[in-house]
């Protein structure tokens, strides 16, 4: 048994090193005082300072944020309504199965297929309206489309876990529908809604494929910028940018953990399968 524990420890530490060595290398070389090569030439923060003078990068950061915020707001509202609509009404069994399948589509179909489908549809819609020219607007639509399903799944799992007794009690006391929603259902749902919104937000920041297919020349986001840059040449400035994104991610994860300590986050992942 002792041997097994040792083996488990070695594999676990090895795996963690495997996950973190590349990221640590990026952080390490982001403060290296040389433009080319990987030889250590002393510590500098110049690459970080240069970032804040780079118009393209600042615009990309702004685009990334706008995209994530707007798509999260819309998808949280739509997804929450969808979850309530699915869980709290007596739909026939067949309809429920269909809805369920639709919600799970973004999970069981590779995102590149959704991206391809969106490219085609936007090109049709473009003949009706200039709004669908590749750009921030089409990217927002693309992001909302995959976010809705995830928000709805998370909120629905919360709906199931809070049960219907409290709502029944409120109804017995003659609560009207708006009052019930405002004072009972939504407050009880709030942890689920926040978890869903956080999930949607991080999914948007994390997304590359949908953005890559639907972006226009003026709507570069940070992942798109980094991708285009490293395909040409890898510079320490890109390392600095990536390190900042990494730190932002760590901060976001910690905030997420704090916010949703009550809800079991791993249940979120479980729910996606059901």
């Amino acid at each position, binding site marked *: 048994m002792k041997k097994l524990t040792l083996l488990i420890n070695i*594999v*676990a530490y090895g795996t963690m090193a495997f996950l973190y060595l590349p990221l640590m290398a990026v952080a390490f070389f982001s403060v290296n005082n040389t433009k080319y090569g*990987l030889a250590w030439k002393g510590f500098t923060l110049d690459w970080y300072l240069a970032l804040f003078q780079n118009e393209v990068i600042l615009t990309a950061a702004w685009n990334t944020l706008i995209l994530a915020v707007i798509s999260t707001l819309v998808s949280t509202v739509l997804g929450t309504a969808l979850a309530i609509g699915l869980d709290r009404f007596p739909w026939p069994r067949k309809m429920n199965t269909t809805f369920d399948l*639709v919600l799970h589509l973004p999970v*069981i179909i590779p995102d*590149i297929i959704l991206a391809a*489908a969106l490219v085609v549809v936007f090109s049709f819609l473009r003949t009706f309206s200039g709004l669908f020219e590749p750009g921030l607007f089409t990217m927002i639509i693309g992001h909302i489309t995959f976010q809705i399903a995830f928000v709805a799944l998370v909120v629905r799992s919360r709906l199931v876990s809070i049960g219907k007794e409290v709502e029944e009690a409120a109804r017995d006391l003659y609560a009207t529908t708006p009052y019930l929603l405002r004072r009972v259902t939504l407050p009880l749902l709030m942890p689920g809604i926040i978890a869903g919104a956080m999930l949607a937000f991080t999914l948007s920041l994390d997304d590359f494929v949908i953005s890559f297919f639907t972006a226009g020349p003026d709507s570069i986001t940070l992942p798109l910028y980094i991708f285009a840059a490293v395909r040409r040449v890898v510079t320490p400035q890109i390392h600095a940018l990536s390190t900042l994104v990494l730190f932002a991610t760590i901060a976001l994860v910690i905030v997420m953990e704090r916010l949703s300590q009550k809800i079991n986050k791993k249940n979120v992942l479980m729910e996606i399968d059901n």
Partner: protein
Amino acid sequence: MNKLMIWYGELLTQKNLIKRGALFLTPGMLWLMIFLILPGLILVLVSFAGRGSYGELVWEFSLENYSRLMGFGVFGWTPDYIVILLRSAWVAIVTTGISVLLSYPLCFFIAGKPKRTRFLWLTLVIIPFWTNMVIRTYSWFLILAPELPLAKLAAWLKIISPGMALYPSAFAVYLGMVSMFLPFVALPLFSSVERLDWTLVEAAQDLYASNFRIFMHAILPQTLPGLSVGVILTFVPAMGMFVVPDLLGGAKYMLVGNLIQQQFGASRDWAFGAAISMGLMILTLFSLYLYRKKINNTELI
């Protein structure tokens, strides 16, 4: 339809209830119809269309894209596209397999930690899970660079010539893929490992089961729910992945994701791209179906 009923303690007609339900359901469902279901169906249609000389779609029904995907071209039959499709499936399977193999020890390791540090270790797995995939992929450029020990070792072993990087290569693609998807398996798996009923493991030990049998009979069935979520969350995106093979595989190790991206990018052959997407979708859904079937069978035993 107009009969009165009690629903959630409220007395109302069925018609009113359905109407209210539709009010909640419609905006979201409509969105998914317009931007998910409809585009999917249009993509199916497009896969039967043709390509005009300027890369525009030509609406004449033909199976040409599919026969091209099967390898029948102007110059006779080549297995290129089929090879890429099967290779993608293979890479996805290997990636999922290695991720599962590494995730079990990792999860047991974390589950064995005292409560305070367990949370910290878990956060350390969650961080890469949420870190942008472009950054996580290109970070391997550094580790695999010619100046660093790994490439030097490979050069010393005469696997590559000195001064060469370890990418682009199939090896780099596997490294990138496993490191990308490992947290996708480990996190759902951990939620199952955490809830493991250890008395069953002890019972197996009391009955002198080997470590392998303990795993198969006492641990695997209990962790199957988490494992299945992890497998699906890994296998599906791994099948369509194009960032990792694009950056770490180059032209040397193309996957179906690159092929689709090419058709929608440089080649501008949307109809063929749509047909490849259909191929990818069928392959993915078929694999998931096989997995489900296999799992259901093992559960019966």
